[in-house]
């Protein structure tokens, strides 16, 4: 009997394996196609935005008193006489090879500017999400564990405030209170002017660079400056993460296995953290990913307030100067990172949660 069952099971198992692999391959291919289409869509949108600008790009080069022949020649050189689809293809080619055009305000290639400013944003958003997760997850769990209590109500209101408070207002008020009145934190900028440019950029992340250079004083100063903008960003991710954690936890706590554990006499602390919290770690990863991507967006406003030399500040300066190459370049980079993080958390979810496979 035992032999029979193994011989009967073996072929089916062998047959099942390639089909599962094929399934994985097709789902991987499907994923890559969606990713490519999404990026193409992003490019199509920035291309379209670049076309509807009411500024004639040729006139910007030749000036408005150029003769018609010169105008026509420049127009042809810029490829603007080609059909739209050809223009789009060459635009995609440019972007893929890293040619985002030249910024009018800085006079440098946009790609260089972006590489210079991006680490500052990354540093702020990363600290923001760390704060958001470290505070938001426990808050959400506690709110769910004490459903209906004043703590729960308070956390609900905080969660909704995250949707209602303008980021730039929070930054301004934070500056007025914690920098101007209480002098607990540093003011705008990444470090005091005195320290500016004293560590050579290796990674562009000033916290890492100052450790590499062994400049602990600068490291401290950078933390001092980073803490307020990162906390402002952290507030928004905290609000969102706490809200989602609470609702995931409420789902789990109403499940029968939780009741079983309670009936068996498992201490409430263990019921919450060992039984109910474990299964929500996977959906939480998606939430954290979404929130991280959202912080990159939120940093635009916060950076303006804190004169933070990141991509958000670069984008707003470019917006006000109608510097379209810089605007579209920043939009592309933020959009691509946003899509990337979203898709990665999507994949992680599928890999980690057996039900989603």
């Amino acid at each position: 009997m035992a032999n029979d069952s193994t011989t009967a099971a073996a072929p089916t198992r062998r047959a099942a394996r390639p089909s599962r692999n094929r399934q994985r391959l097709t789902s991987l291919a499907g994923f890559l196609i969606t990713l490519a289409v999404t990026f193409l869509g992003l490019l199509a949108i920035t291309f379209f935005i670049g076309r509807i600008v009411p500024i004639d790009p040729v006139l910007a080069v030749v000036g408005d008193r150029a003769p018609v022949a010169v105008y026509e020649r420049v127009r042809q050189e810029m490829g603007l006489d080609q059909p739209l689809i050809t223009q789009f293809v060459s635009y995609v080619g440019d972007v893929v090879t890293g040619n985002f055009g030249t910024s009018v305000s800085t006079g440098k290639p946009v790609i260089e500017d972006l590489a210079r400013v991006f680490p500052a944003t990354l540093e702020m958003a990363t600290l923001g999400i760390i704060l958001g997760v470290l505070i938001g997850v426990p808050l959400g769990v506690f709110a769910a564990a004490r459903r209906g209590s004043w703590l729960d109500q308070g956390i609900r209101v905080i969660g909704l405030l995250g949707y209602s408070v303008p980021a730039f207002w929070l930054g301004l008020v934070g500056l007025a209170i914690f920098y101007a009145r209480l002098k607990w934190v540093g003011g705008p900028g990444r470090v005091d002017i005195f320290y500016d440019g004293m560590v050579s950029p290796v990674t562009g992340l000033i916290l890492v660079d100052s450790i590499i250079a062994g400049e602990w004083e600068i490291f401290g100063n950078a933390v001092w400056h980073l803490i307020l903008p990162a906390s402002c960003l952290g507030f928004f991710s905290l609000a969102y993460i706490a809200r989602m954690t609470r609702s995931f936890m409420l789902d789990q706590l109403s499940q029968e296995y939780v009741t079983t554990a309670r009936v068996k006499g498992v201490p409430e602390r263990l019921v919450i953290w060992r039984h109910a919290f474990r299964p929500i770690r996977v959906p939480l990863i998606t939430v954290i990913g979404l929130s991280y991507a959202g912080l990159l967006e939120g940093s635009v406003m916060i950076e303006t307030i804190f004169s933070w030399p990141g991509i958000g500040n670069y984008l707003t300066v470019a917006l006000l100067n109608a510097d379209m190459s810089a605007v579209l370049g920043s939009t592309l980079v933020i959009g691509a990172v946003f899509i990337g993080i979203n898709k990665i958390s999507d994949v992680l979810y599928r890999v980690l949660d057996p039900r989603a496979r």
Partner: protein
Amino acid sequence: MTTFRDWLIDDSPASPMQARLGRFYRIFGALMRNPLAVVGAVIILVLVLTALFAPWLATHDPLRQSLSERLLPPSAAHWMGTDELGRDIWSRVVYGSRITLAIVTLVAVLAAPAGLVIGVAAGYFGGWVDRILMGITDIFLSLPKLILALAFVAALGPGIENAIIAIAITSWPGYARVARAETLTFKNSEFISAVRLLGASSLRVNLGHVLPLCTSSMIVRVTLDMAGIILTAAGLGFIGLGAQPPLPEWGAMISRGRSFILDQWWVATMPGFAIILVSLGFCFLGDGLRDVLDPKSGEQR
């Protein structure tokens, strides 16, 4: 009054009118039992009344400058103080409610029907129509809204009309998703098949039978989105791409107060409270409406 109430909650209504009124009555009653929703509804009501009666509520002309009264702190004469041109901030906040209300209404009027039509078409026709429409929708959904709105306004040029268009362009995809999901649940139900058997055209089926069924989840979604729309509009105004001076738009007012935040905190802070209050109002109301109209979707959004 009891008789009227009995007529409203009658289990076998005699006319569609009675059924509809009864439904509204029940929804209204359920909403009024949720304290946060009541708070939200009151805030929105106050917003609408403020916008309507702005000339009576404002103590000063919102645009009149008076340089001798620059940057005065809040007092009996100027409830929220004055700004750097001596304009009364309370009066400007009151008139600003008109701009905020206009922005959210116009965005809702532009984006919701667009999303509704696209979503219903995708859900009803299915196949390649669905694939193309939802492909475009998903691309828009996977992009950061604020950045996209910023880029569109940069291209269209600053101004409140362009800000409204840009926000509408970035908000329709959410509505399309909701409408498609709703349509898919109704598409194969028996009453739709019955209408089709009677020979109704797909236009008639959609306009007369599918669209009305999507409205309640659309209302929930639009209300929940209002806070985001207000914040985006204020952000555009703050950067200088939305409403232009001297319009008393709240975001632009905060931007003017930025230079005085350390000493004259009220210039930037007061309009911020208005934004928070109104956004919270929409969140509370939206949450309450969702619990009543769309209990399935729970906390997730």
